[in-house]
């Protein structure tokens, strides 16, 4: 762009992602791409038992293997630590026992894959050879695999340090739900067993830790969504001060939730680097990923819905038993999201869900993309389908009768968010959103398509689902914008990027304020040395929080530039504009200065005065605190074909109408939504983390554990609505997870519809061919 061209606005443009050039050319820098002199490699000995008391650990043979530097256990690392357990607990009144994990197992292993010992060797190969030489005495204990079993009276303890397995108990409730049921015209009841897949980033977890004694600095390159949180845990657990720890998230090959959680390996490798003085790298392999990275897994719902004679909801009540796993690294957020997201875009006058979180001898469960919301949405949408069937209403019609109307915005749901605030939907036009989706998907014409297919012996089905997603969670995110005498613009932020396009998004916003191109801006995300404060990636939050922080900081820098230039150019700030890296008088590009000149003047010269009335430096830092969560919404409609003899499900059409407020980069939002839908389809149709009755994982490769692949993904049509959020200056809402949320419900609805002649009821996820076969009436086969 030259100065003569009109000023562009980058907000709202499908700007190509600044991240992609390096990534597509293989020049990304992931943890495993970082090589340091003297590097050693780590491998973890993991528990082969779901539950066992840990006896003696003999590492002598392993340490004697050539190439092995050290073999470390809990006893070796504990002296470096300030506490027995890794301090991860999140505040929650519902938690009865805070079960923080240990750096390495101390005297009990509580799931298969729990790390017990750490081998440090010259190569990963040798480290793995040494694992086979470590002898451990285990005394196996009974394992809890199904949380419902663990909550029965007299059940064995999943952990001997907890008196029972009810790790937390809570309710989501408002209104007179029993009164609603007493006066209801219709009631439906249903049990659901919902299994949700894991994160499955292409790059598994991993880190490289180096302690430089000369600098007295522990540097950890960590494949994490939360570098600042990782630093905080390391500082506290290792008894260091903040200046002694730097955590950098380099290029991260996908997060999707699990990399939010600080895992024991992160502390173990960092502590080992401090203990041995050697830089140590650990890259999780896929087998370990299946056995040690947090998952989402199982929920058991037992619910009933009441409505009046016209199908208007009166109340929903029931219970939810949630498989919590063996530790509590993420509090109760996952099932609470499920519970609160159930109400979705509907007017629900009363609600009570009693939630029990059961300890199991399985990997801890924490949110993955969608974070429990797909399950809540699934339950509501399935209940609406049941009511529609009972009342003889079209599935779209019953939803129409229950949607929150635009004039009801902002809408107080009656529920509380997890920090105790009111759960208030900020904006959106749900009826229009659904109407557009139905129109785009040809809902009204579907019966004709179905009939034509049936004439050819094919079975088509259609389904729809609506959802709302709370996004942009606080309490804050940080961003600073800085221009030096070089004239180069640098943005630093506490946000962290795992492929979402965070760099591009922030560069677009800052570019608009400063009159430079996005590709001229450097964005440093995910480095605790670059941004003193920060939270990171979770809850579809970074455009809302870091975006508004960067926008505000860039606005402050712009104001400073205008102020300085106004004096220099003897022009009113309103008559100045910023274009192509310069500030100049509007319409007179020659009459101006470069941003570098402004920055140089504010950088100061020894003994010379700064421009009058301006504090030094051309920079601004903002810690943006959102006023409340912003709620994006959408409608999905899917058409499927089901072979009623082989139970193969093919998704033939998928339409999304999506409203995440104002779009910063529609192309990236499309990518997020499409990726989210595929993630959701994967969970709806394929993903199943299976365990034997003894707690042994049965699906630890992608041959056994299926995820959606390109050949099975349908073309996904995405249409946008833009209901600005009134809660932030940019009017944006989150988009990272929403594609996932409705996919599970919509597929179940569509498959059930396709198999309507066989009266199949889908209450279990994933919807696999073997399960459909089992649901079919025997005479309905072939």
């Amino acid at each position, binding site marked *: 762009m030259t100065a003569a061209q009109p000023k562009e606005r980058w907000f709202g443009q499908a700007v190509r992602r600044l991240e992609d050039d390096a990534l597509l050319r293989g020049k990304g820098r992931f943890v495993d791409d970082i090589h340091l002199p003297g590097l050693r490699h780590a491998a973890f000995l993991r528990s082969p038992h779901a539950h066992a008391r840990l006896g003696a650990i003999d590492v002598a043979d392993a340490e004697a293997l050539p190439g092995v530097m050290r073999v470390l256990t809990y006893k070796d690392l504990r002296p470096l630590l300030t506490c027995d357990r890794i301090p991860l607990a999140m505040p929650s009144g519902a938690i009865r026992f805070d079960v923080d994990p240990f750096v390495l197992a101390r005297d009990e292993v509580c799931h298969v894959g729990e790390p017990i010992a750490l081998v440090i060797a010259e190569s990963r*190969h040798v480290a*793995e050879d040494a694992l086979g030489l470590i002898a451990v005495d285990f005394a196996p204990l009974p394992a809890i695999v199904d949380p419902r079993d663990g909550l029965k009276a007299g059940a064995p303890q999943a952990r001997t340090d907890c008196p029972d397995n009810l790790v937390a108990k809570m309710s989501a409730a408002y209104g007179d739900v029993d009164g609603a049921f007493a006066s209801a015209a219709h009631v439906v009841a249903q049990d659901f067993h919902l299994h949700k897949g894991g994160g499955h980033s292409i790059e598994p977890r991993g880190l490289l830790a180096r302690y430089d004694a000369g600098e007295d600095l522990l540097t950890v390159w960590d494949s994490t969504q939360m570098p600042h949180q990782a630093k905080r845990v390391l500082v506290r657990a290792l008894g260091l001060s903040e200046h002694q720890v730097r955590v950098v998230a380099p290029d991260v090959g996908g997060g999707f939730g699990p990399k939010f959680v600080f895992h024991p390996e992160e502390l173990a490798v960092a502590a080992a680097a401090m203990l041995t003085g050697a830089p140590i790298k650990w890259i999780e392999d896929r*087998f370990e990923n299946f056995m040690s990275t947090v998952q989402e897994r199982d929920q058991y719902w037992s619910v009933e819905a009441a409505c009046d004679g016209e199908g208007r909801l009166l109340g929903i009540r029931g219970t939810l038993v949630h498989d919590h796993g063996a530790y509590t690294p993420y509090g109760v957020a996952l099932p609470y999201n499920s519970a609160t997201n159930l109400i979705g875009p509907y007017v629900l006058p009363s609600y009570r869900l009693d939630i029990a979180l059961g300890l199991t001898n399985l990997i801890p469960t924490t949110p993955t993309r969608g974070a429990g919301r797909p399950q809540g949405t699934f339950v509501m949408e399935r209940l609406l389908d049941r009511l529609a069937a009972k009342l003889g209403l079209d599935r779209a019609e019953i939803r129409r009768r229950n949607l929150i109307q635009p004039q009801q915005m902002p809408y107080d749901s009656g529920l509380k968010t997890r920090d105790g605030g009111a759960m208030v939907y900020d904006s959106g036009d749900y009826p229009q959103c659904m109407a557009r989706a139905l129109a785009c998907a040809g809902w009204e014409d579907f019966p004709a398509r179905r009939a034509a297919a049936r004439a050819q012996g094919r079975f088509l089905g259609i389904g729809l689902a609506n959802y709302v997603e709370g996004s942009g969670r606080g309490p804050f995110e940080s961003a600073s914008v800085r221009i030096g005498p070089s004239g180069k613009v640098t943005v630093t932020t506490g946000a962290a990027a795992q492929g979402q396009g965070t760099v591009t998004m922030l560069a677009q916003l800052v570019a608009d304020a400063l009159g430079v191109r996005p590709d001229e801006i450097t964005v440093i995300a995910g480095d605790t040395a670059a941004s003193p404060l920060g939270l990171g990636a979770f809850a579809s939050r970074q455009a809302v929080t870091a975006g508004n922080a960067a926008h505000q900081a860039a606005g402050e820098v712009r104001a400073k530039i205008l102020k300085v230039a106004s004096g220099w150019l003897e022009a009113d700030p309103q008559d100045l504009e910023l274009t192509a890296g310069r500030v100049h008088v509007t319409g007179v590009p020659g009459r101006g200065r470069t941003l570098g000149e402004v920055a140089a003047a504010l950088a100061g010269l020894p003994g010379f005065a700064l421009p009058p009335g301006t504090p030094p430096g051309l920079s601004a830092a903002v810690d943006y605190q959102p006023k409340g969560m912003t709620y994006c919404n959408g409608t999905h409609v899917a058409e499927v074909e089901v072979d009623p*003899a082989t139970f193969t499900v093919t998704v033939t059409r998928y339409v999304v109408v999506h409203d995440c407020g104002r779009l910063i980069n529609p192309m990236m939002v499309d990518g997020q939504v499409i990726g989210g839908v595929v993630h959701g389809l994967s969970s709806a149709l*394929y993903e199943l983390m299976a365990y034997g009755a003894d707690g042994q994982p049965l699906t630890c490769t992608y041959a056994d554990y*299926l995820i959606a*692949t390109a*050949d099975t993904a349908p073309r996904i049509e995405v249409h946008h609505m833009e209901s600005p959020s009134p809660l932030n200056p940019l009017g944006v809402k989150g988009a990272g997870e929403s594609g996932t949320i409705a996919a599970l419900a919509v597929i179940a609805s569509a498959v059930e519809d396709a198999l309507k002649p066989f009266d199949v009821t889908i209450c279990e996820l994933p919807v696999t061919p*073997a399960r459909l076969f*089992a649901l079919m009436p025997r005479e309905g086969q072939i």
Partner: protein
Amino acid sequence: MKPAPFAYHAPATKAEALGLLARLDDARVLAGGQSLLPMMNLRLAGPTNLIDLNGIAELSGIRRAGDALVIEAMTRQRAAERSELVREHCPLLAEAMAHVGFQQTRNRGTVGGSIAHMDPTAELPVVACALDAVLTVESAAGGRQFPIAELAQGYLMTQIAPDEMLVRIALPLWPKGHGFAFEEVTRRGETFSVVCVAALARLDGAGAFARLALAIGGLGAAPVRLQAMEAALVGARADAEAFAAAGAAAGALEADEAPFAPPDFKRHLAGVLTQRALARAAGRARRASS
């Protein structure tokens, strides 16, 4: 997921490879490595010696030899998939090949490797079974031949001795005008099959079966031929009733428990796919003869 230490050998000739096999203890031959290497990385397999056959040119190739199509064991699956000879003389194999692994694995995986590995869900042993393939194995002491029906001795176990290797697969050809079909059900698009069926059929002038072959994979350790039903249907009209009878016979076979595929589901699929495969094969035979 790193393999345990092993000694790597890269012979340049078949004779050299057989010599190594005779001499070395605990040796495995490496073909395309699409199954063996993952097993080694998971430390489910840990041979002391790995004999890499990939540098031996004489172990690859496809040729017509009399009434058989001869495929050397190290022939890449992708080469067989794209072979004009295969398409012309053995279209069943060409059709099934698209289901074998993924395009990426077919570039490396070999025809002989898949058959010798004998994965119970693999497609190639089923095709070979339908065609009554004859296998040639060799050791330093010499070679021997046996029909594929005699290969399996249990899950992932074959009668190929530790000092032997599979060198050649001979597929007896069906005459021009035969019909063929390959059907499979997977748990998701491209992935391992749950059950797969290969069908071959030849019709007489009156539209009755002159000859047919039905092989079913996925039910147990090795593919199963529906021999009694094949014999019973010769001379019968190739119509819906015949296809249903074949399906019913397949649906009555024994099936082992497998993860995510209960026996009754597998039997059901065997019935459905057999019926469909035979119908499709018969349809092709009818069109070819009309």
